[in-house]
């Protein structure tokens, strides 16, 4: 069966004053129906751009190339504006990080939501209203009829995000892309919104791409994980494989830097990844993570590192052995740390 979304060797190049930015370098990604795939990484790793490219929303001067970019077996490459409009918002929907800026502050919530529905479906105003109220009730918005007449600023952050999820569900999409859906929310609201996303997916069987930097969110929600660094996929696999035994030094570093009550000792230095995400300006001539890696050796500097497959579904872009688990050398990190 064809996957819901299939991306092979997606690259993005953006001409800038001093050369060519390469924020996405040959990324592979597949999403099946009913599956949640998380894309994880620090800011500037290309995770948001990858998800925008799936929607055809890459920056205007960007050059996109891919071996294959297909949704339900149908290629998305080179679609014109009209064909895109039939897909965007209808078959692929997006949930943004900040619901305050995603809604238009000058229009009532009900009108904004109805516009989207009526753009894609031949429904009357009354029918649209009925469907919106039903969906708002479904996502746990109290007093949904009253909300339709409110403006975005009159709603709390949690309510706005629930209404954003309802908006994404309006046209019964087959794929939802959620870009940091809970980053702007309080912790208790985050838990409720993630629960809602999980329930919605269970009911509708929609495919979900979850873009996040929070490994805790990934552990709670995702079936598979794709870890991105410097525009490349550096590790991928099932959530159990990747989080259970992270093999790439970057994945391991991300996981060690998070304080966990009861497990990390209070006041003890947390692990961290020294250095910064590099600006993706030149073609890679070595491992992209070279400068920040605690395990680097000569071979890493010789040539770009290919993505290799291991047992199960795991793929890894690292010269270190895939199968032998290694305990990251903590003292080494502490010694090189400036902080």
């Amino acid at each position, binding site marked *: 069966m064809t996957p819901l979304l299939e991306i092979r060797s997606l690259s993005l190049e953006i001409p800038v004053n001093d050369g060519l930015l390469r924020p996405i370098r040959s990324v592979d990604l597949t999403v099946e129906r009913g599956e949640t795939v998380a894309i994880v990484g620090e800011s500037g790793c290309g995770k948001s751009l990858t998800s925008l490219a799936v929607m055809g929303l890459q920056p205007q001067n960007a050059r996109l190339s891919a071996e294959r970019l297909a949704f339900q077996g149908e290629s998305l490459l080179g679609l014109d504006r009209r064909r895109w409009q039939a897909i965007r918002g209808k078959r692929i929907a997006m949930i943004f990080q900040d619901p305050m800026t995603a809604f238009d502050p000058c229009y009532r919530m009900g009108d904004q939501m109805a516009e989207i529905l009526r753009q894609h479906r031949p429904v009357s105003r009354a029918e649209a209203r009925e469907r919106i109220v039903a969906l708002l009730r479904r996502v746990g918005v109290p007093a949904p009829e009253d909300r339709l007449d409110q403006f975005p600023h009159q709603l709390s952050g949690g309510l706005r995000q629930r209404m954003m999820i309802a908006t994404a569900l309006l046209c019964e999409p087959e794929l939802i892309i959620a870009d940091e859906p809970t980053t702007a929310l309080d*912790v*208790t609201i985050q838990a409720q919104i993630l629960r809602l996303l999980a329930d919605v997916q269970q009911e509708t069987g929609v495919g979900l791409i979850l873009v996040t930097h929070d490994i805790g969110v990934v552990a709670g929600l995702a079936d598979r994980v794709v870890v991105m660094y410097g525009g490349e996929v550096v590790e991928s696999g099932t959530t159990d494989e990747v989080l259970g035994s992270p093999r790439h030094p970057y994945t391991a570093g991300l996981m060690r830097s998070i304080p966990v009550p009861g497990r990390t000792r209070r006041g003890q230095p947390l692990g961290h990844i020294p250095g910064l995400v590099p600006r993706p300006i030149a073609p890679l001539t070595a491992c992209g993570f070279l400068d920040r890696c605690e395990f680097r050796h000569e071979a890493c500097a010789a040539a770009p590192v290919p993505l290799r497959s291991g047992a199960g579904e795991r793929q890894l872009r690292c010269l270190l052995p895939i199968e032998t688990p290694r305990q990251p050398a903590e003292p080494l990190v502490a010694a090189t740390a400036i902080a």
Partner: protein
Amino acid sequence: MSLLEITGATRHYQVSAGLRRGRVLQAVRGIDLAVEEGEILAIVGESGCGKSTLARLLLGIEEPSSGSITVGGRPIGAYGRVERARLIQPIFQDPYSSLNPRMTVAGAIAAPLEVRGVGNGRSRLAAVHEIMDAVGLARYLAGAYPSQLSGGQRQRVAIARALIGEPKILICDEPTSALDVSVQSQILNLLARLHRSFRLTIVLISHNLAVVGHLADRVAVMYLGKVVEAGPTEAVFAEPRHPYTRELMQAILPPELGRGLPELRLKGEFPSPLAPPTGCAFHPRCIRAGDACREAVPELAGSERLVACHYPLREPVHA
């Protein structure tokens, strides 16, 4: 006597609502807290709980509507502006907006000394270099502008600027919320180290229990302008007594497999500070609430472990 003492502090704001008569927003509704010298106290709560207002009161940027805040036994309002700035310094959430984009790193860090007229240009630059070393900023960045720095570097500049005048107290309002996790851990490590080497007293304000729990000696949990629970970090984490604290703890998503999503037992939404619920402010959301909770405001009681709840939890949550 504690270094920093908050006694019955409240802060109200007049809110205009179009043609209607102004209403009163009670951001801080009566807080008693003491911070000992050399301690790290964390204040935790969600948006709208008044934690940032409390930070502004502690910095002396705003005066409490009633109650008092004293530093070293003297009301904070009695200090002059410069005098106060020598004693207490802030670190804000967003290093993108807390630094002047037209000032170099060295200029921003040296500004507090310049305002006070300490030393000459050369001695100030030496002090800047010294503090840049201490916070882990390479010296070649001294001439850089904020736009040339990463988020973590900017937060280090903000920390260096706060520390150059050798203050006694640091008020950190969400110091890592705008940063990536790997950078967050560096800033947390840095704060822990500076706390030791500068013998700082730190008030750490955050919505993330896991982050503050990692640094703080004591934790105070706020809900709608009041402290609902306070105590030593380990004790509060191991055995939360207030139902709200327990929900906050449950909501933490650790990067561990097999936990699934947390099942929260919170009803409804965060109440509006314009119309706080009667009795215990948490009662409309609490699954344990009884009649007493709707009528009487629970007092913050206890000695080391303080809790404001009519029916506090007793048993540990995690077996």
